Structure formats: structure tokens, C-alpha cells
């Protein structure tokens, strides 16, 4: 197999990491929603934490994207 082809395959596999981020983000939002529906009065005060947790989780998906980019363009 050519090294070039391996790079593309590797980049493609790296994008699978985004599935984990998707799970994480969906977990955060579903738990927030169920919590917010149980106690709606406390929900607005936790929006900051929600956004913050979303950004932290999403960053991990971005990392896998970055790995793909590095494989494609740098390595």
C-alpha cells in the first residue's frame, strides 16, 4: 500500500473520533434537558455550565478533526 493512501485512510479513521464527541455532546444536552424539565427554575442559572461543558466536549471532536488535518497536510 502506498504511504499516500495510508494517510488518507488514517485521516478517514481519525474522523471517527467525532462520534465520541457527538455522544458526549448529546449526553450533555439530553441530561440538561431532563434536568431542566424537572426543575425549570434552576435551568437558566446552569446555561453557562451547559455551554462550557459543550465546548469542552466539542473540543475533543475538534481534536480528532485536527489529527485528520495533520495527517493530510503535515505528516
Amino acid at each position, binding site marked *: 500500500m502506498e504511504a499516500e493512501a495510508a494517510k488518507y485512510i488514517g485521516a478517514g479513521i481519525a474522523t471517527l473520533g467525532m462520534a465520541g464527541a457527538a455522544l458526549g455532546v448529546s449526553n450533555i444536552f439530553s441530561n440538561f434537558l431532563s434536568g431542566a424539565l424537572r426543575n425549570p427554575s434552576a435551568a437558566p442559572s446552569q446555561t453557562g455550565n451547559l455551554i462550557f461543558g459543550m*465546548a469542552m466536549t466539542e473540543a475533543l471532536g*475538534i481534536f480528532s478533526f485536527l489529527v485528520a488535518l495533520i495527517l493530510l497536510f503535515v505528516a
Partner: protein
Amino acid sequence: MAGTDPIHQFVIEDMIPIHVGGDGTAGSGLNLSFTNSSLFMVLTVLAITTFVLLASSRKQLVPSRLQLTGELAYEFVANMLRSSAGTEGMKFFPFVFSLFAFVLTANMFGMIPYFFTVTSHIIVTVALALLVMSVVVIYGFVRHGFKFLKLFVPSGVPAYVLPIVVPIEIISFLSRPISLSVRLFGNILAGHITLKVFAGFVVSLGAAGFLGWLGAILPLFMTVALTALEFLVAAVQAYVFAVLTSMYLNDAVHPSH
């Protein structure tokens, strides 16, 4: 092809060439040219300064809209810093405010078509993250001396777990600048590439005749939706950057957590 090349928007072009050192030929010495990136850094600084100065120009007891916006930004950052780093952390307020305003404005400038996105280059975000971490480390050692190293020894942990916990804490501390910089860089870069790719679909489909025009509607809607999402991401990433900076500064102010 350059019109739809998703990478082209990140190309840095010299505007005023400045070369230091070397023998005068291309490629030797340091290239310190004033580039399009530099232009937008300067524009960002000018925009922030103009905004804050205009917002505080007419001191009104009952604020105008502009003044209220400035005050809201001020209080937003102040509350964020105070809630994570306490009142002692408020001495870093100008620093955190500058970081937040710079990242937010740079991200928002990036959303305007044909504008260069300063934060889409990893060297910029790495520099900002390293700046934050060096402020944390230097202030921590100056303020607390070697007690700052308590940061790596969580209180209330039994002694026999410490050999495991301390390396984990050190690694997590060392990975902070990486995650801080790559998060911002990756979000902005990925967003802009995705946006450009979908916008490129519209152009290439639109060139394919009537059916192409019909097919181009889908990526067009996608582009509009992504644009909204990217505005959200631009704001959220600036917020996250500032919040994490406040939390790390809290470690410098109160190392024993």
C-alpha cells in the same frame, strides 16, 4: 479553483514586507512583514478600543445603549473572573478582559466575508495560551513561592494514592495550554473550512445548469445554518477561552484546592 478552495482563506500574504537579518535574499532571516493577519490584529485592537472608549465617552448616570453595552461587557467579564478566581483574582481583570475582547472580536471579524480570521492560525492561539500559562506560573511562584507546587497535590488525598495522582495532575497542567489553544484554533478552523466547503458546493452546483441550481438550494440552506452556528461558536469559544483563563488564574491565586 482558488475561489472555492477551502484552504485559500487562511493564506497569509505580505502587505508591507519587513525582513530582519539574512543576506537580503528571499527566505533568509526573519520575515516580520506586516501581513493581512497583522492588519486584522490591528483592526481588532482598534475596534475594541474604539468601542470601549466610545461607550465610556459620555458619562451618563442613565446609560445610553452603547454605554450599556460597554458596561455589560465589563460586568460580564468581571463577574466571570470574580466567580472563578475570587476578589484577589480581580487584579487580572484587564488581562482577562483583553483576552476575551481580542478573541471575541477576532472571531467575529472572521465571520465577515473576505476578512481574515486571526484566531484560525495555531501560532496565534498557542501564543495566547502560553501567555496565559506563563502568567499563571510566574504569578503563582511570585505570590506563593514553592507553595505553588501544592497545586499538584490535591488536599484530602491519602498518601498512598499520591504517586498516581501527582503525575496525573502534572500532566493535566501541562496539557492545559495545548487544549486551550487547539480548542480555539480547531473550532474556528473547522468552522471556516466547513462553511467554505458548503459554500463551494453552491458555486460548483450552480455552474451545472438548471438542475444544479435546484440542487444548490440544499447546500445554500446548510451554509446559512452553518453561518449562524459559526457565530455561536465564535462567541462560545471566546467565552470558554476567558472562563478557562479565569480558572487557571484561580489556581495561581489559590494553589491549594
